[in-house]
């Protein structure tokens, strides 16, 4: 264990001191995030809320309430049916939809007022607060009752997110794929430079060398993820819905899958250069056919089978769901099964065909 940790630390030092490593695995994804984040994040930051109002039974009260709403400057009020307004909410044309129930005066029961809102936008919480205040205001005008209305907030995830939201899990998927695939070329380099052989003459088991490489990959994945998420969150205002352990779990699993695939691919390479070539040929199409940067619906139908075979498609699906809360396109179980399949098969092939010399 001591020699293993020493090897991990030594390898880490050796890699981190190479400025190219830092560039490709840390700076590149960060630059990517900044660049495309700036391109796609336009149009955010409006302080106008679109509120859909559904009136169940037009009466004196609803008219008074709507008149009150009309005085709030930041609100654009839309009227419609519940279905119509909820659909508009799903398309992000509304920030929230308020359902005004029929008010039975003379009853002592509190009246729940359902407010559906887009939970992906934190600003909508402000809207909910505002609406509560409006109801309080109305209540104060009707002094015979202490408390009539409670605002019943119902979060609804919008189906379409901002482009920059979609971009964040995409960049993370890309970074993990590249980390795993290109990182594996290092083993070919170590073999080519006879470093594997030198280490092989020491009591260090050869498996330690591979495991230390994998541990370092996972560490780097954690660093990358943290950086990308922090930038996404604080610079581009992307809301992360998953908990940190969900995110980390998805990231480590994804890294492990692509490290295995990388090792499988480089078993066919004799030199570092040919290793890079093979990886490049695989990763480039994968990046564009996996839907990590744009919705899969944009791709022509004949490519769909390819898309559904690519592991990056499923990692993208998991990360989107965990990070920004889009519903799973294939289902979590399917995603995990297919990725797990890739992991297992790659690992078996890599172990079977890898040559130490």
């Amino acid at each position: 264990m001591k020699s293993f940790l020493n090897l991990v630390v030594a390898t880490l030092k050796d890699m981190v001191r190479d400025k190219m490593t830092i560039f490709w695995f840390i700076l590149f994804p960060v630059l990517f995030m900044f660049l495309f984040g700036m391109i796609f994040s336009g149009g955010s930051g409006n302080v106008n809320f679109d509120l859909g109002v559904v009136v169940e039974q037009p009466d004196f009260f609803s008219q008074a309430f709507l008149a009150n709403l009309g005085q709030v400057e930041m609100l654009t009020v839309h009227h419609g049916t519940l279905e119509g307004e909820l659909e508009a909410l799903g398309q992000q044309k509304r920030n929230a939809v308020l359902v005004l129930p029929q008010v039975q005066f003379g009853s002592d029961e509190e009246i729940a007022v359902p407010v559906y809102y887009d939970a992906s936008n934190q600003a909508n919480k402000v809207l909910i607060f505002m609406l509560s205040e409006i109801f309080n205001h109305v209540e104060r005008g009707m002094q015979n009752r202490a408390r009539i209305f409670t605002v019943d907030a119902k979060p609804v995830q919008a189906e379409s997110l901002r482009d920059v939201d979609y971009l964040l899990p995409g960049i993370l998927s890309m970074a993990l794929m590249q980390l795993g695939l290109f990182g594996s070329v290092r083993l070919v380099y170590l073999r080519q430079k006879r470093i594997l052989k030198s280490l092989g003459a020491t009591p260090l088991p050869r498996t330690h060398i591979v495991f230390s490489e994998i541990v370092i990959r996972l560490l780097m994945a954690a660093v990358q993820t943290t950086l990308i998420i922090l930038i996404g969150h604080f610079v581009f205002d992307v809301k992360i819905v998953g908990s940190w352990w969900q995110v980390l779990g998805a990231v480590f699993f994804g890294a492990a899958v692509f490290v295995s695939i990388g090792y499988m691919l480089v078993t066919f390479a004799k030199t570092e250069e040919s290793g890079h070539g093979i990886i490049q040929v695989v990763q480039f199409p994968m990046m564009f056919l996996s839907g990590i940067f744009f919705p899969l619906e944009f791709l022509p139908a004949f490519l769909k089978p390819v898309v559904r075979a690519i592991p990056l498609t499923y990692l993208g699906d998991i990360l989107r769901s965990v990070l920004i809360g889009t519903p799973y396109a294939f289902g979590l179980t399917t995603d995990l099964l297919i990725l797990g399949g890739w992991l297992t098969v790659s690992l078996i092939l890599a172990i079977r065909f890898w040559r130490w010399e």
Partner: protein
Amino acid sequence: MASIVVRELTKRYGKLTAVNQISLEVEDGEIFGMLGPNGAGKTTTVEVLVGLRDADAGEVRVLGFDPTTESVQLKRSIGVQLQMPTLFPRLTVEESLRLNASFFPDPFPAEQVLEWVGLKEQRKVYTYKLSGGQLQRLVVGMAIISNGRILFLDEPTTGLDPQARRNLWDVFHMLQKMGKTIFLTTHYMEEAQYLCDRVAIIDHGSIIALGTPNQLICDHFEEKAVELSAMDGCDEAILEKLPGVTKVQAAHNQITLYSTNVEATIRELMQLEAENRLAVNDLAIRKASLEDVFLKLTGRSIRQ
């Protein structure tokens, strides 16, 4: 007791037989040298002995371990330096030593080894920035730091300047005094002659002579060598007829006479010079060397 026992070891690469039925024993505490030209099978032998390659035939025991099946136990008790230094490029000299030390149960202190191989001043230098000689000393140091009972050194002084080479020889002698066994390969005759207790001369995968350097020389040469340069060239036939001379080797004006009776040979040489039949320069008498042995056994110089 024998640290290393090799019986009829054979190793083939495809059709090429790199090592052909060699047998040898290395005693505890001995410095044993394998001397031979490039491609003679030295490296292959070392790699089999340390468990990096499996033999095709024959039996090998190192410290009682079979390198094929007990390589893990074996590797804990030996230090190995392979040819062509290969290291993590961006670790410093000291970090590289410490990393290697951490693989062994009871290593030497890094400080000590830095001193031995003369790299104290370079301790903070990344290995990819070292000169060839410094790198070579580092990998030898990385083998030494194991504090293994046997050191396997594959051409440990290649690429070193004479001063550095002599320093390493001193270190090897010191390690021997500490009880270490050293198995090394070399194509430097003077290294084998000065450093090794016993030498195996290997050529085309076979051992062609084995013994102490002196013994090898005595076995093959009763003669001593008389070296001279003849200013205006000379007739080899005349030299061959000098008393005591058994063999004449001439290359340009450089002549080596192997003689069983040096006194008589020189007396006659002087006579020839007095008669103006020969203009002798730089006359020197030396014992025959391993170089001469190699030349005699293989018919060529080791550096060819």
